């Protein structure tokens, strides 16, 4: 994010000095984005000014989320592109109402060493979620070793990735670039593809823009990209899962919402499970408390309930989050490693729940 922001300043500075309009060849190809057939290479869209996609086009706005999806510790660089003369409309629930042509750009990257996260960055893939006239379409472009070209990959691929983690240990993973069906597995609501992250409550936070830090919703409004948003101070805000200053239950519910709730909701791929982990859910059984598994199979880990208040070690939720075995692990896709910090958070949350006399 910092990298992208620096790139943007550099370019803006150059413009100021020369007084020149951006060269036409750097304008985002908005027509190509919504064309029927996806471009074979990422560069074709001119979303970035350099072949290695380190410097975004000026029309792209970087953003971040209060609580993101875990993807094997990959760093994510997110940008919003809204076609000229179009505007995003505020929505209190669900993703914002993005106009046709909107493109959400997300690059997944690994530093060589997470103790120096800004250095020696390797881009793995750049995903585009494009609002085409017929609906949202998910595409992913996979970076070459030279880091100067990303090509469309529709059938998915495994990419060997190694890095030094934050504790100094070496990690080697088979990073999973999803195929287009897998994109839909998470991004579907009642069978249609929708964005997951950019909900008002998840965007409602400051971003360290080059000029100054500013609330993202206020920033988008000021740029004329967003209409109808109330003041951030009266807008719902999703807790930051890793902010120790926030209450544990709120952090845990935020994490479960973002990492599980896209499938585990009443219109998602896991609707049949009866386990619903969205932030709005209030039914204790649907949230897993005293809930028996339905089709977990070996995913139950010989445990009886999704959540046993006070007992993370007896809770299927923790067992499946900690697992890396296909058929057991949750989420089913998008990770090969266990998110240790999140397992700790959810364990703390379950420990904090009072054992209830509730029927199950």
């Amino acid at each position, binding site marked *: 994010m910092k990298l992208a922001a620096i790139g943007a300043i550099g370019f803006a500075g150059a413009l100021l000095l020369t007084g020149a309009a951006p060269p036409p060849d750097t304008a985002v190809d908005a027509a190509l984005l919504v064309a029927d057939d996806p471009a074979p290479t990422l560069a074709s869209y001119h979303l970035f000014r350099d072949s290695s996609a380190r410097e975004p086009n000026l029309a792209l706005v970087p953003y971040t989320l209060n609580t993101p999806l875990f993807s094997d510790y990959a760093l994510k660089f997110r940008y919003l592109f809204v076609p000229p003369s179009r505007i995003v409309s505020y929505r209190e629930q669900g993703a914002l109402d993005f106009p046709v042509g909107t493109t959400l750009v997300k690059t997944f990257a690994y530093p060589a060493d997470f103790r120096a996260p800004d250095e020696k960055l390797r881009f793995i893939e750049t995903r585009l979620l494009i609002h085409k006239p017929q609906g949202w379409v998910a595409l992913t472009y996979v970076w070459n070793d030279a880091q100067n070209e990303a090509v469309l990959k529709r*059938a998915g691929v495994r990419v060997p990735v190694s890095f030094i983690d934050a504790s100094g240990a070496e990690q080697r993973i088979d990073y999973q670039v999803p195929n287009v069906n897998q994109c839909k597995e998470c991004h579907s609501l009642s*069978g249609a593809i929708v964005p997951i992250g950019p909900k008002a409550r998840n965007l409602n936070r400051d971003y360290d823009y080059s000029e100054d830090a500013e609330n993202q919703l206020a920033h988008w409004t000021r740029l004329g990209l967003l209409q109808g948003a109330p003041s951030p101070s009266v807008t719902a805000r999703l807790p930051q899962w890793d902010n120790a200053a926030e209450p544990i239950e709120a952090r845990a519910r935020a994490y479960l919402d973002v990492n599980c709730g896209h499938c585990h909701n009443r219109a998602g791929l896991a*609707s049949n499970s*009866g386990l619903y982990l969205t932030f709005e859910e209030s039914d*204790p059984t649907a949230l897993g408390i005293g809930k028996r598994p339905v*089709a977990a199979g*070996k995913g139950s880990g010989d445990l009886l309930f999704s959540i046993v208040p006070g007992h993370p070690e007896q809770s299927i939720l923790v067992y499946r989050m900690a697992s890396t075995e*296909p058929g057991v692990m949750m989420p089913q896709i998008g990770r090969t490693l266990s998110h240790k910090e999140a397992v700790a958070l959810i364990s703390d949350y379950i420990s904090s729940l009072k054992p209830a006399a509730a029927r*199950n």
Partner: protein
Amino acid sequence: MRTVLFGVLAFAMLSGAADAKTLKVTPGADAQERLQAALIDAKPGDVVQLASGRYELTDGLSLDVANVVVQGMGPGKTILAFDRQKGEAEGLLVTSNNVTVRDLSIQNARGNGVKSKGVDRISMINLVVEWTGGPRAGNGSYGVYPVTSTNVLIDRVTVRGASDAGIYVGQSKNIVVQNSRAEYNVAGIEIENSFNADVHDNVSTHNAGGILVFDLPGLPQMGGHSTRVFHNEVVDNDTPNFAPKGNTVAGVPTGTGIMVMANRDVHVFDNHLDGNASSGVMLVAYLNTFTDPTYNPLPRDISVHGNLFGRNGYAPVWKGGAELATALGGSLPPVLWDGITSYPKPDGQVVSEAVHLSISDGPVVNLALKLQGTPATKADPVVTKTLSDGNLAEPAPVVLAGGQMEMGRAH
């Protein structure tokens, strides 16, 4: 938007019919990517044809294009091997309408074999889904697994080694399971929270339990009803239950023939049951407490008739079963009913219900447990030749959507 979508769909279907093509896939290097690419590139009307051979797959496969046939050259010839699967919870996941998967083997999927989620018209024909290491708790849960689907055909499917149910249909409507074989699974065939199912002419053997018709609380589709279980061979279900704890089937006693739990309008007839040590036919209420106020835990409107019983119920393994068998002369009668007719609602209020039964195959033992949640050790058994409070209308035969019935007959 709706008109645009409709136009696109109509066009896709028309063009699909006109230009239907066959996408051929062969085993070998990059099979994962080539096969998955074919499943993505297929257009409505296409056939994805898998040549003979062993496909070494590293991830689950998925299909999200409507009106597609995925066809191998026959089970044992086209083999999708998931021994090295690194991700996904299914061998093959289908999420699009009107799909047929046929003529192939699926081996050692890390999770389920073939799953369909939310599909109208799913047909699984002439498949062998197996875990080749024998019955183990670490095997995948379900061999074939249509869920929240409508118009489901399972025909000539063999499943071996599933750690839950070999053939499992959940929260679905309009279902035919026929001419199939389930062996060495925890449950052979299970119909759960489903409406209108015909389960017939199958062989269910060497599982812990042969055929189950269940309804569970707290799910989007509840109130399972109208299932006919007929003309099946339910014999020698003797594999010790190897389900991981926590799963409902972990509570199915080893040696169960046919078990109906919390369902209505279930007719069990013309089956052959033999060699099921715990019981022949069991009609029981859901055992646990529940929080869903709309859930009914009782089996009701159940008919059992015309079955051929060999030796069953001679060594029941469930708690209190052995004592009961001794008290009844060493063996249980072929049909067992728990005699539960009332249950506490989640708010504590106890409701009673007339559960109509028509059991002409006798003798039948009524455990007279009366209140849901009463353990079988409190049984006050009554054995009668038959047990009936009138005739119960049989559910109408299931009629599947156009083309599916014909596929099921064409062999």
